[in-house]
């Protein structure tokens, strides 16, 4: 006894009869489409968050890596001499490539957002700042601190690592959280589609029984459900992705965003990631439905 060469039952094949054996209506149709749309919408946001966190992490790492600041807080009459002494110490420290004294005008600009443009910086005991850039080898911060303590008593070295590391770590965690959320949404979609498939099979128990009776193989029966659920998931995901993309596009522009939203969204080629969402969610539906149908069919003789 041999099977017909055409009935091997590829899970998704262009075979009109398979599409028609399962009735086209039922609440599971709407449920699958809605679930896929909702999940795709949420995945768009999770993806945007993950990508933004990743960019933020890169930006902070690049901006702060290899940099340090020296603060000099000294009586006004000693300020210039300590400043000059500090520059001298820094220029003779191995591993430091560049030393630049921040001018009073630059300091005023830095303070302006908090104190306004009319702040009399000269009249306040504001420390002077020196921007330090490392070379590729890097310097010994402990050794430098000891030298400064001996030669420039008013100097405090801030090598940025103290607050750089937690920030980068936090951004990386947000990135990981975003990816985990995407995986979680995928798993939730799979669970929902599995439930919908089982409900559909239960609702179509007579269809399945008739198909088994007339000699349909499991692959044929499964493909009727798999194809339908995969297509529903694909269209649902396409709608959800489009809605999510539109929502992201309509977010305030970067310059208008508050700090917390800084960079949230997709940039340039990152929009292409969204094209992958409907096929990925359809693939999740495909495997979830195939698994569910095969498991259900095994319970029948």
């Amino acid at each position, binding site marked *: 006894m041999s099977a017909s060469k055409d009935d091997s039952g590829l899970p998704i094949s262009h075979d009109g009869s398979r599409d*028609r054996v399962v009735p086209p209506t039922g609440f599971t149709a709407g449920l699958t489409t809605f679930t896929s749309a909702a999940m795709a919408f949420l995945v768009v946001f999770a993806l945007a968050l993950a990508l933004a966190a990743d960019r933020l992490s890169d930006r902070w790492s690049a901006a702060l890596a290899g940099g340090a600041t020296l603060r000099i807080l000294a009586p006004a009459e000693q300020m210039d001499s300590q400043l000059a002494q500090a520059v001298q110490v820094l220029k003779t420290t191995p591993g430091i490539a560049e030393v630049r004294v921040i001018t009073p005008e630059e300091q005023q600009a830095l303070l302006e957002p908090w104190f306004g443009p009319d702040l009399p910086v000269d009249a306040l005991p504001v420390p002077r700042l020196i921007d330090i850039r490392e070379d590729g080898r890097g310097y010994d911060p402990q050794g430098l601190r000891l030298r400064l303590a001996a030669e420039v008593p008013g100097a405090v070295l801030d090598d940025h690592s103290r607050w750089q590391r937690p920030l980068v770590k936090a951004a990386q965690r947000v990135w990981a959280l975003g990816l985990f959320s995407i995986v979680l949404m995928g798993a939730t979609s799979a669970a929902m589609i599995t439930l919908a498939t089982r409900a559909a099979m239960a609702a179509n128990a007579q269809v399945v029984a008739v*198909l088994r009776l007339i*000699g349909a193989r499991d692959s044929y029966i499964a493909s009727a459900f798999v194809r339908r659920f995969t297509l529903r998931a694909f269209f649902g995901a396409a709608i959800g992705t489009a809605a999510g993309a539109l929502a992201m596009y309509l977010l305030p522009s970067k310059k208008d965003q508050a700090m917390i939203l800084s960079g949230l969204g997709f940039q340039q080629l990152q929009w292409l990631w969204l094209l992958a969402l409907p096929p990925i969610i359809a693939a999740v539906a495909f495997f979830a439905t195939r698994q569910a149908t095969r498991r259900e*069919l095994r319970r029948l003789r």
Partner: protein
Amino acid sequence: MKERDLIDLENVAYTYSGGELLSEMTLSIASGAFYFLTGPSGSGKTTFLKMCYGALVPTAGNITIFGQDLRAMTRDDIALTRRRIGVVHQDCQFLDHLNVVDNIALPLAAAGQDSLADGANLKELLNWVGLGHRADALPPELSGGERQRAALARAVIMSPDIILADEPTGNVDWEMSQRLLQLLVELNRMGKTVVIASHDLSLIRAAKTEVQARVLRIYNKRVQLAGANL
């Protein structure tokens, strides 16, 4: 098992949770023969037929279908075997969203032979069972007799070696049951093996003028050959 036996049962028993239904059944279904299976309601006729097409596995003994041990058959083996066995149930089930012609052609579609469903063969089959004018009707729109004839057409469309009919005349009047019987007799004359489970002795008596039928009777959990003549 003789060469021309299609289905062989050897010391077969079937036990439900409520107790033993069938016991020590040894029987061969020979090719080309016409069988009636009788017995009171609940005697195990349907269970017997279900074991013959692999829907139930005996709790004891062996069944061989077309030379294959039922216990050793995979799900795909069973599906392929059912393409050689036409089954007609009393409560013949259809896909209610498909019309009559699509329901009848369903076995061909499931076997990947859609192309055969087109054209004269299908029309001829519909006319043979007297449903040529009901091709586009949906199953819920059919009468009991029409449903039985549609089920019979679906059962034979794959040109099976054997037809198992479980109370095929249970829901139809006498005239329609005679018509159905005539169709089954015609199939037997074409060389098909026919097994009809029925508790309707008048139907069996009516058949004796048409066909040389062997009558099997389930009695006290066992099957007996009641004789060639009624």
